[in-house]
């Protein structure tokens, strides 16, 4: 089977994020970049599915600046087979990403598309759902493992997504109030949540091997997709700050203050 996985280049969550003085964007100087953490989970799942269903292929795709080749390489170093970089230096909104991905998918015809549930820069949580609708496919968002990340299933690196007969897959989803299980007809879009698996680290030999794996480059224009944003970012501001309050010496003082000062108990 052919599995397509999307990877977005995002600011490292360990880097300090500050708003630019002119409120146009965040300060990008001195910030580290990496693959969106959810997308690494998607790559991991794709690799497990591939390795238990040979022959299969995992293709990683990113839409972004030329520098996003690094995040594609990180997917290849985890074990993906080849990459596609759709180059666009300017901001592409999640809708533009979904329409670019549709064009790629029309050409690649994968059996399954795995995406993160959310890119931790824009925090949108929409690209997978938009793409599913543009393709007219079914979707299972927020995919999780039925078993915990400490379970024997996870230790044995079993996929959480269970392939069934007749081109179907069962996906457990994290929804409000519990875990829902859906059966999706393939091809389908699955967006992954944090508890689907623990992604592997790339080994040094695999990092070396990844350097030789092919990355095809193209542009939205070549794909015939207009990526002018439907949703423009017009201003970026720092969040309201909460100031540290007081340290209390003991539980009695705490409870008394909550009662008579904050009046919340």
């Amino acid at each position, binding site marked *: 089977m052919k599995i397509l996985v999307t990877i977005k280049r995002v600011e490292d969550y360990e880097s300090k994020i500050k708003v630019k003085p002119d409120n146009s964007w965040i300060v990008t100087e001195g910030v580290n970049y990496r693959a969106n953490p959810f997308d690494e989970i998607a790559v991991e799942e794709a690799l497990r599915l591939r390795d238990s269903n040979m022959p299969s292929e995992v293709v990683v795709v990113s839409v972004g600046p030329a520098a996003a080749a690094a995040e594609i390489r990180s997917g290849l170093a985890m074990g993906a087979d080849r990459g596609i970089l759709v180059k666009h230096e300017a901001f592409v909104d999640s809708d533009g990403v979904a329409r670019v991905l549709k064009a790629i998918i029309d050409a690649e015809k994968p059996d399954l598309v795995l995406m993160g549930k959310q890119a931790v820069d824009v925090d949108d949580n929409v690209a997978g759902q938009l793409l599913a609708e543009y393709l007219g496919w079914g*979707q299972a968002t927020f995919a999780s493992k039925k078993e915990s990340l400490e379970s024997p299933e996870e230790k044995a690196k079993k996929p959480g997504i269970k392939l069934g007969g007749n081109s179907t897959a069962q996906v457990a989803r994290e929804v*409000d109030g519990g875990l829902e299980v859906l059966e999706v007809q393939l091809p389908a879009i699955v967006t992954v949540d*944090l508890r689907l698996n623990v992604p592997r680290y790339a080994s040094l030999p695999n990092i070396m091997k990844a350097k030789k794996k092919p990355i095809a480059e193209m542009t939205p224009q070549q794909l015939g997709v207009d990526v002018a944003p439907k949703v423009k970012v017009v201003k970026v501001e720092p969040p309201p700050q909460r100031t540290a309050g007081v340290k209390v010496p003991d539980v009695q003082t705490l409870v008394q203050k909550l009662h008579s000062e904050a009046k919340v*108990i």
Partner: protein
Amino acid sequence: MATILVVGEQANGHLKKATLSALAAAQQIAQKTGGQIAGVVVGAGAGQSAQELAAYGIPVHVVEGAAFEHALAETHSAAAAEVAKKAGAGEVVIAATAYGKDIGPRIAAKLGAGLASDVLAIAGANQFKRAMWAGNAIATVEVTTPVKVVTVRATEFAAPQKAQGAGTVTPAQVAAPQPKTKFVEFNEVKSARPELTEARVVVSGGRGTKGDFKPIEQLADVLNAAVGASRAVVDAGWQPNDLQVGQTGKVVAPQLYVAAGISGAIQHLAGMKGSKTIVAINKDAEAPIFQVADYGLVADLFKALPEMAEAVKKLQ
């Protein structure tokens, strides 16, 4: 003037409270656009929820039938989009719950609409405020399409008052598409506690609990609180996924949030910074959680929480 369509959500045959936040956001949009608000509720037996929404004085469409029994994104988005088209909606507003996040983008794609997700405030007729980078920045976004879909963060919009006269409830005939997904099962996490996103008090535990949530639950019991958790706790399988508070979990804004054994990573803060009063209990005086806490107590949670439960009981 275009219609502003509120897409309701039901759970156990009743309207979810989060829908009222979507209604409040729609009312704010109406002030900017002059639009008229209408509602739609989709689902088998959605009639009751539709009545509950109509009690706020707006006309409500209801899409019922076996085809809509499970909240499949394909069928529910198709129904909501169909109603939006018929009503000539300029805006579609939904709460950014798991359901709203699942169906909202599909509705937008069907309507050719731009989508502003997890919106914190209505800044203008086509401008919305939303958090990005784990709440490290607040962006104002402009949706440039004629039709707009907005999912809203429920904690940021207080439920409106019920109206004097209820609106009408009208069944909408919508053909259900044949979905490519099938419901298999729902493993519900049953809890007698108030819902995390709606509770007045939340007591959350982190890795510092080492998986022992008894002290958290004891305090939650006396405060009639919901229980929350950090990602570390949920990843370890100590508590259900559904209890994760944060950037990629639930966003809560209770009157009182107690964080015990939680270090205060930015991703956790993103889900609770809006709480009215924050209490942090951590044995590390340098833990970042103290920077946002109104009251900080440097202590062992296994000692402090039972004491706190006792002290609260004495007050009652």
